[in-house]
Structures are given as C-alpha cells and as structure tokens.
C-alpha cells in the first residue's frame, strides 16, 4: 500500500524530483542506499587488505595472555594484597556470614515454621488462596526431599535480594532526583537488563573465586538494575499536579520526598521488588555453576549426568518458589494504595501481629514435635519413577514412530536441516557482509546510534577472536527466534481474536513467565536429549510467553475507534487484521521481536550446559577448568552479542514509550 501511495504521489510531481520524493517518503530506502554507497567504497578495500570469509586474523587481539596474567595475579595476591584484605575480603566475609546466618535461622525455624511463615505472609499480602498455595509449596519441597537445598537457595536469595533492593533503591533515588544521574545511569541499566545472566558470572569469579560470595554478588549485580530502574521511573513519574499542590502548601524538600514522592511511587517500587526477586531467583539458580549450592546445584549436577528424575525433583521446588514469590509480591503491588478490606480486626498492624503470633506458635510446636529438618521417612522419591518413564520415552518416543518420527528424530532434523546450514552459512559469510547486514537491520529499524553500537559490538566480537563461536551461537539464536516468532505471532493472532483462547492461555503464560531460565532445560533434555536442538527448544519455550503476551496486548490495544471504522466500512476480519491491527500494533510487534531475541539469547547461552556448545560452553568450560581467560573472552563476546542483538531489534518507539 505504501508503495502504491509513493508511486501515485511521485507520478503527479515534477519529473526531476521523483527519486528524491521517493526517498523522502521512505527514509529506510535512503538509509539503505547510503549504506550501499559506503559498502561500495569500503568493501573492495577491506577485501583486498584482509580478505573475505571469517574475521581476519590480523584484526584480532589475543587477550588470553594478559587475562591469564591478571587471573594469576589475582590468585597470587588474593590473600595478601590490601585491596583484597581490606575491601573484597570484608565483603566476602560479610556475605558468607549473612547467608550462613539466614540459613541457620531458617533451619532453626523448622519446616513447619517456614511453611507457616510463608503461608501467613502470603495471606497478609494476597489472601487465603495464595496462603494455601504457599504453605503447600513448601511442604512439597520437603516431600521431594529438597528441604535443605531449598533453604540454601532461600538463604542465598534473601541476602541477595536485600542487598539488591538497598543498592537499587539508592541508585534509583539518585537517578530519580537528579537529571544528570538519570541520563548517565539509564542506558547502563537498560543495557544490563538485556545481557544474558552468564555474562555476569566470570568477572565476579575472577575477583571472589568460586563460592557463595561470588554467587551472591553476581545475583546482586543481575537483580539490582530493575529495582533501580523502576525506582527512578516511579519517582520521576510522580503526578506533577500533586507535587505542585504539596509545594504550594510549603513542604520542604525532605517532606516532599517522604510524604509525597515516595508514596506516589509505591506501585513502581513494589513492581521493582517483584522483578528483583524473580531475577534474583533466576540468577541464584544459574549461579550454581559458580558454587551457589542449593537447588540450582542439584539441577546442574543432575543435568550433567542426564539424570532427568533428579533434575525434576530439584526443578519442581524452583518452580514452586518462583510462583509463590511472584504471586505474593505481585498481589502486594496490586493492593498498594487501595482501600483495606476484610474485617476491621485484621487490618494493618493487628493482622500482621496475629500472623506473627500464629507463625511463632506453629514454629514452636513444630520444633517440639517434628524437629528442624524434614523427616527422612516422609520423602517421596520421584527420581526413579521419572527416570523409568523417561527410559520408556527414550525407547518409544525418541525414534521410529511411523509417519511422524520421534522427538530425537525431530531434534536431529532440526539440527541437520536448519541449524547446520544456518551456522555454516553464517560462518561462511564474509565478515564485512555480516557487519553490513547488522548495520542495515539496525539502521532501518532504529537510529544511526543503535546501528553504530550494533556494528561496533559485532566488530568487537571479531577483535576478541571468537568470530566462529559467536556465529555458531548466532545461528542458534536466529533459528530459535524464527521459530518463536512464527509460533508466537500465530498464537497471538488467535488469542487476539478469541477471548476464550486468551482466557485459556493466560494462566499458562503466567506460570511460564515466572519460571527461571534454568528450569526449561530439564524437560527439553528429557524430550530431546542433549545438543543444540534441545537448547534451541528451551529458548523457544522460554521466549514464547513474552512474545505471545506482548503481541496479544498490542493487537488488542489497537484503537477501538479505528477498528470500528474498519468494520463499518465492511472490512473482513482478515482485512481488519492486515490493514488495521497489524500496522497499528507495529510498535508492540517490534517490541515483541526485541524481547524474543533477548530472551532466546539468554537461554541459548545457558544451553552450553546441555551440549549446545559455542559461547555458553566456553564459559562453562572456563569455569570448570579454572581457565578464566577463555571464559572471560567468551563472556565479553556474549555481552557484545547481546548488545548487538538488542540494538539491531531496538525500535525507536521503545525509547519514546519509556519516556512517557
């Protein structure tokens, strides 16, 4: 339609201005032409100087030497250098002590006490229904024989979340009250949120070594940005009218902050808390790779020996923890600022006091009757039956089913028909062609700024000397994103047109969006074994809910007046979709692509744990072998890849949307 318009307009104009007018109508065309001109000049030169194919060796910098030296220096000086003795040492000790303290406190509370506390907090924040879920969830953790790992994870998370919230609040306050800090901090926070969790592991290991302190700090670094971002946005978004009224009454700066600005931002603060807790859980599980212990470690160990039953036994508590934490904090955020309900005797302080009293009573009774740790004889071992079921699946579903094949066959076909050609194609593409493609995509979708960042990030990967590995990772990301988008858009169009489908999907999406990335590896390993295809499948499953949700909301959010207008003109539902809904929902669609890419990358990288190779494996390998130089280079490449993929798909609208 746009072309038709362009041609009719140019046809009527004066003949000389035709190409110019065409360019003016379609700025993307102009950008591409300009890029073509640059390429025409630069490519022959680059080709002659460095050759085509993979990134030229002359342009790489080998960092493994210097990085290895840094690593050696740190290991050599960890116990003697003042920086470690008086700074990192203290941090490390404080972290170990506080995690230990929380862990002991949880154990002292006993299983009955912990379950009661969880249930009562959920009751106060979200009502009795969630209280039941919370209490039952903890009992299930015990039944599965995962009480101690669950408490370890919980202890680590508690400390990490507290630290993240304090750090996030401080940063958020600074950015919320000072424009300059906001301008500096915001791109940093935005970028941190798109980087895969794995990228954060190596730098902390470099400084703190493998163990709990490193795991907690990695979690804090990963989980604090949303708190900081939302605090800043909440403080800045305070209703200007209210703030003016408060100023007109003669409030001091401090009064304005405490009695108006902070309470007005309550919703954002609680949303920040929710996101921080969820990210902390996600990272606390992944950080098992660097010695976090707990549930994540059980999953990690089980996956490395392909023991699906054991992995599932540890994975279920993770999912339950995620659901309970998410629903409780989400309900608290929803309730903020609304009228208190329920009987007057249970409101506010009195309700909490009652909850504390009951919890204390249950804990004491529990201690005297049951003891601290979940009783051994009340454990239901699910590992074996699950493994039996899995073996049956291996025998019957993996391969050889007439007509449709088997899951292993599908994985093999996906690998050999899609992943391999894609990888070989990307690796065989001349390096300058990759850079040009990146530039063209980023520039047409976004601005020259995003294009520049993307190209520089891509070039940095080449300079780091991991071009081939990164192309491998990229091929998996591209394949998984393509599948995600096809499925996601299909489902979303359906959900946008049928209320019933949307209602059916909503609870499923809710649960799927809460689960930590790591957990997705368990079912795909059970279904498809190990390799690149299962990792891609996990990535698709992980990214799909977000894509479906954003797209559905975008399609549903289309101005009803425009839809009504189209209907009144007699448009069929197909025409409505193509000519009204999709064009108007373009920003949402682009955002869905962006989110899909970011989420897929995160899981493809973690896929290194289940044999997807490439950059993720390099990180795991570096950690396992103590070869931090290799891991760090791979980590840096992951950062660059994440940055590039985000910028390439970053629509200009996203920035504007966030401003408002």
């Amino acid at each position, binding site marked *: 339609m746009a072309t038709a318009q362009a041609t009719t307009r140019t046809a009527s104009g004066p003949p000389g201005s035709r190409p110019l007018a065409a360019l003016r109508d379609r700025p993307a065309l102009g950008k591409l032409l300009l890029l073509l001109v640059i390429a025409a000049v630069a490519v022959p030169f680059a080709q002659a100087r460095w050759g085509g194919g993979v990134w030229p060796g002359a342009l790489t910098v080998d960092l493994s030497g210097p990085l290895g030296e840094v690593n050696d220096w740190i290991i050599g000086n960890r116990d003697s250098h003042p920086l470690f003795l008086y700074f990192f040492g203290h941090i490390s000790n404080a972290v170990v002590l506080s995690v230990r303290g929380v862990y002991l406190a949880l154990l002292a509370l006993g299983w009955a006490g912990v379950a009661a506390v969880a249930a009562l907090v959920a009751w106060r924040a979200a009502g009795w229904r969630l209280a039941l879920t919370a209490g039952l969830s903890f009992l299930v953790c015990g039944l599965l024989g995962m009480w101690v790992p669950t408490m370890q994870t919980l202890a680590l998370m508690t400390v990490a979340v507290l630290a993240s919230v304090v750090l996030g609040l401080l940063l958020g306050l600074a950015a919320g009250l000072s424009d300059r800090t906001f301008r500096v901090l915001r791109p940093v926070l935005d970028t941190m949120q798109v980087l895969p969790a794995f990228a954060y592991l190596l730098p902390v290991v470099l400084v703190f070594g493998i163990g709990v302190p490193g795991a907690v700090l990695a979690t804090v670094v990963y989980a604090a940005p949303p708190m900081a971002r939302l605090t800043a946005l909440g403080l800045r978004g305070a209703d200007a009218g209210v703030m003016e009224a408060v100023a007109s*009454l003669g409030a001091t700066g401090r009064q304005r902050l405490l009695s108006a600005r902070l309470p007005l931002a309550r919703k954002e603060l609680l949303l920040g808390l929710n996101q921080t807790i969820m990210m902390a859980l996600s990272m606390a599980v992944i950080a098992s790779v660097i010695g976090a212990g707990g549930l994540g470690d059980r999953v990690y160990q089980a996956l490395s020996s392909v023991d699906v039953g054991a992995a599932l036994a540890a994975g279920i508590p993770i999912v339950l923890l995620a659901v309970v934490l998410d629903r409780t904090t989400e309900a608290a955020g929803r309730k903020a600022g609304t009228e208190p309900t329920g009987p007057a005797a249970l409101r506010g302080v009195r309700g909490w006091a009652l909850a504390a009293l009951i919890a204390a009573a249950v804990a004491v009774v529990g201690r005297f009757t049951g003891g601290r740790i979940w009783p051994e004889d009340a454990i239901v071992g699910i590992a074996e039956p699950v493994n039996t079921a899995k073996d049956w699946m291996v025998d019957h579903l993996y391969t050889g089913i007439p007509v449709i094949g088997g899951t292993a066959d599908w994985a093999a076909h996906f690998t050999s028909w899609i992943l391999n050609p894609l990888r070989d194609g990307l690796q065989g593409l001349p390096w300058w062609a990759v850079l040009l493609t990146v530039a063209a995509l980023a520039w047409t979708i976004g601005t020259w700024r995003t294009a520049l960042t993307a190209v520089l990030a891509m070039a940095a990967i080449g300079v780091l000397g991991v071009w081939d590995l990164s192309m491998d990772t990229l091929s998996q990301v591209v394949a998984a994103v393509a599948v995600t988008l096809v499925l996601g858009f299909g489902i979303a169009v359906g959900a946008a047109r049928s209320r019933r489908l949307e209602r059916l999907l909503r609870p499923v999406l809710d649960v799927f969006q809460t689960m930590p990335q790591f957990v997705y590896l368990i079912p795909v390993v059970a279904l498809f074994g190990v390799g690149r295809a299962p990792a891609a499948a996990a990535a698709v499953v992980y990214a799909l809910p977000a894509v479906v949700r954003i797209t559905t909301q975008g399609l549903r959010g289309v101005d009803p007046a425009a839809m009504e207008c189209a209907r009144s003109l007699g448009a069929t539902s197909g025409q409505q979709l193509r000519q009204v809904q999709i064009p108007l929902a373009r920003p949402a669609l682009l955002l869905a692509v962006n989110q899909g890419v970011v989420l897929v990358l995160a899981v493809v990288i973690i896929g290194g744990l289940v044999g997807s190779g490439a950059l993720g494996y390099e990180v795991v390998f570096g950690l396992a072998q103590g070869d931090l130089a290799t891991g760090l280079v791979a980590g840096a490449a992951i950062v660059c890849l994440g940055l590039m993929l985000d910028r390439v798909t970053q629509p200009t609208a996203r920035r504007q949307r966030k401003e408002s």
Partner: protein
Amino acid sequence: MSEAGTPVFSVRNLWKVFGPKADRVPGSELADLPPAGLRERTGCTAAVRDVSFDVEKGEVFVVMGLSGSGKSTLVRCLTRLIEPTSGTLAIDGEDVLGMDTTRLRELRRHRAAMVFQHFGLLPHRTVLDNVAYGLEIQGLGRTERRAKAAELVEKVGLSGLEDRRPAQLSGGQQQRVGLARALAVDPSVLLFDEPFSALDPLIRREMQDEVVRLHREEGRTMVFITHDLSEALRLGTRIALMRDGGIVQLGTPEEIVGSPADDYVREFVRDVPREQVLTVATAMRPPTAGEGDSGPALRPGATVSEAIEAVARSGEPVARVTEGGRLLGVVDHACLLDVVAGTGAREVTV
C-alpha cells in the same frame, strides 16, 4: 482604594517569560513584539507580560482568559511556584520576590493556600489525612491536626467520608477535599486555579455557591482563575481579563459587560445576558417633572432584570431608583429595553 488599607497582593509590571535567556525580554524593545514575533526572534514565550494590579482585602479577584492567556502562570507567580522573570510583587506590603526559602515557605504555609484544577490530592491518604496535610507539613501534632481537619471536612459537607481515599470520591467531592485542605491552614488569601473546570455543570454550580457562601460568611480574600465568563461574573468583585499574557481590562463585572475596553472584550461578553449584570444605576435617566412621585422603588445596585420585573408587576410607566430616601433617577421601558437590546448609547461611567 486607600480606605481598604494595604492591598493583600500588590503586583507591578510583572513578567514571566519562558525560554532561553528569558530575562533579556522585559524592558527591552523585544517587550513590544507580538507573541508570534517574540517566539520567532528569541524562542521565548511571554506567559505574563507587564501585569499590574492590586487585590484588596476581602474581595474576590477574578482573573479570566482563554487557555494560553497566562492566567494560570500568573497565579503561580503569586506564591512563586513559578518564579517571575521581573517586576515587583508584595503580599500585605511585604516584598515576595526578595524572600529567602524559609520566608517563602512560611508564606505558603500560612498566608496563601491554593486550590487546583486537578485537585492534587495524595491518593494514598484518606480524606481526613489529606485535609490535615498542610497542618502536618507545619509540624502540628497528630491529634490537633486531625481535630482541625475534621472540623473542615464538616464545613465543606463531607461528613462521613473521612476515611475514604480520593479515588473513591466524585470529582466534586474531591475538590471539596482540596478546598478543605486549603482552608485548614487558615490562610489570609485563597488562590483558586480553575478549580471547577473539570467538574460537571451541575456540580460546578454547586461548588460556585459554596465559594459564594464561604466568601459571604468569612469575608476571605480570594484570587480566582477561570476561563468561564459566567463563573467570573457570578463570583468576581472585580475581574481582570487577560489575553496573550497581558491584562486587557480590569473592572467590576458591570464595567466589563457595560463598557468593554476593546473589540476583544466586546466579542467576549457579547452573549452575556446584559440585564442580569448591568444595574439600574447604569440604565437610569434623570427624572422629568412628576415622575419621582410614583412607581416602585429600587436600590441602585438592583439589576436591570429585577427592574423589569418590578415595572411589569406594578404597571407603572417608570421605576424610581432611590438610595436612603433620595431619588437618584428613574428607569422607564425605553431605558430597560435599551439595556436588553444592547442599543443604549450610554456607557458606564467609572
């Protein structure tokens, strides 16, 4: 004017210019440029240009103008919620622009309280705590401020709603909370910034009555911003009509309607039912012999529509305008019809 003592607000040559290097505009040759020209030359907008007026104690001073005329900026300049660019501004004879932060805060806490178009209530507080907010800011104890707030909640007619949140109230009720909050600090002057524009016509009328009642009962000085001419005519002791940041005409409602200063004002007041605003003092003529003996007697402040009613009821040809038993003049059918038709050549003598 002098008999009223020191004016509550005394504003002289006040300017507020938005834009880069705003302070070069007032007093230079740029000051005489029309708005579009000024924006083109300097990138600045003069929201308030060279405004001077006094607000006398006990009056309702209405500032009226269409949106973009600078009236909201002007009222914010009075307590320096927006910092004026130049000019002088005094409250009760005390210079406002020279005040330091502490004194300015005192001014806002005790002397001038404001009611806003969009209420500006704190959504997380109950009605009672919203009303008590100004007192809390001043550092008053909890019991004391709540007792005072409860009094005012009662006064604005919100008894029984003390524990509601603003979101649970209707627009009119929310604005009553805003009014109570402003009254709670017992200010010497109340500033209203288009307080009723966001309300339904019926509720608006009710709230206007509330303001009239408050003014009658307490005699509080008020500065009232509005874009609604009928509201201005109903409430205003005096009206300042603004356009493009400047005051076009300043006078009583009768002066504005009866003798518009220029075509802009004339166009503005064209549809006003003149007989309801103009008084018989304007419409009367000297009596001819014998006319002063019969016919209904009217005060000079009676409106023309009241005179029409009186004349029609009595069946007499004229009505007498008297003050303290003294005959000032008479109005006959012709005088009254002239006012209604707008054909009277007479202009109001100030």
